């Protein structure tokens, strides 16, 4: 939907002005949760990106907001001088700058659009709960499918290699088992670790992935087995754990609480170790196959 000013119901000069992004999902939530009310909706051009990411990139920002306020001639349309913004848009907007340039005061209303009705009914006062960021099981679960597709793409060459080497050296079942083991390790890091996030030991995401990876190794050990020689077993253990740990660490990009400095530090600490463990696993397997 194009950016600009929209009317919900039949707003007048006293109706509140709600600012949002032209991200389909948030626009729909805003519109449906405010159905039956009379409000102005000012949609900023964020090129289809959600408020949070757009604020980080600056497209949901001071400049764009000022431009839209001018373009919609908001000052003539409403008598009050208040704009209601999503709290997660704040990294892109300097409220005092907006006031200076437009005369409108910025109120950061709520984090979730679904809390807007409660906010309006509460005399436009933000409660602690409306300001609290959550990352529930459901919030985490919806992120997983996209992550899975990405992860699948990145391990595809490895899957094919494992399959071919397994098949070639020990027969078709070994190739298939190898693929199952690798896929499971990927799932342990990409899906299981995010789901169990608050209950896994941390704060390091790599550690969380090591735990789910070892769990998966345990499951493999009692079902399809880890290998036919001690070297192979050790190689499988190390390899699967490293894969799981890597993908769990990758999930930091989806969480709303990991700082850039934190992820950078974890990367410096953990990534070299993961690479060493992965290479060791490959060498062990090489020895097991040749020996």
């Amino acid at each position, binding site marked *: 939907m194009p950016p600009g000013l929209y009317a919900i119901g039949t707003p007048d000069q006293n109706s509140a002005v709600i600012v949002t992004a032209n991200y389909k999902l948030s626009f729909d939530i805003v519109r449906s949760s405010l159905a039956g009310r009379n409000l102005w909706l000012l949609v900023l051009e964020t090129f289809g990106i959600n408020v949070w990411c757009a604020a*980080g990139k600056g497209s949901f920002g001071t400049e764009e907001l000022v431009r839209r306020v001018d373009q919609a001639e908001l000052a003539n349309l409403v008598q009050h001088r208040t704009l209601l913004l999503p709290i997660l848009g704040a990294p892109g907007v300097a409220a*005092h700058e907006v006031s200076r340039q437009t005369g409108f005061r910025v109120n950061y209303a709520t984090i979730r659009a679904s809390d807007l009705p409660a906010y309006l009914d509460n005399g436009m006062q933000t409660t602690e709960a409306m300001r609290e960021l959550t990352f529930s099981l459901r919030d985490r679960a919806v992120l997983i499918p996209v992550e899975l597709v990405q992860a699948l793409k990145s391990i595809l060459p490895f899957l094919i290699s494992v399959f071919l080497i397994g098949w070639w050296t020990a027969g078709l079942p070994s190739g298939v088992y190898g693929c199952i083991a690798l896929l499971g390790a990927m799932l342990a890091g990409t899906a299981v670790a995010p789901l169990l996030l608050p209950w896994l030991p941390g704060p390091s995401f790599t550690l969380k992935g090591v735990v789910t990876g070892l769990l998966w190794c345990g499951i493999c050990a009692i079902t399809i087995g880890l290998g036919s020689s001690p070297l192979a077993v050790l190689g499988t253990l190390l390899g699967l754990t490293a894969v799981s740990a890597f993908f769990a660490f990758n999930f930091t990009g989806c969480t709303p609480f990991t700082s850039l400095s934190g992820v950078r530090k974890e*990367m410096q600490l953990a990534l070299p170790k993961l690479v060493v463990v992965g290479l060791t696993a490959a060498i062990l397997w090489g020895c097991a196959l040749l020996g």
Partner: protein
Amino acid sequence: MKKFRYLKNVATLKYDEELCIGCGRCLEVCPHAVFKLLNGRAKIIDFDACMECGACAKNCPVTALAVTAGVGCAAGLLTEWLRERGVKLKQDGC
């Protein structure tokens, strides 16, 4: 968000209490309740919860706050690291 904690003592958040005029903006915009208003001035009460989103620094009218803002994203950092070494990957995602 109290049950989610990440690494300690790494955030780049800086606060100059001398400059603070107690407007309360930082409390309003911080999604992790890092600040509290005490005797008319902001106080950092939960430094390690800061995720470096930059909202407080951007909205402080007297620039009492500063933070190196960025997204804590492993994939992003890896891509950046590779790019610095001349390896280009297709960039998608956030």
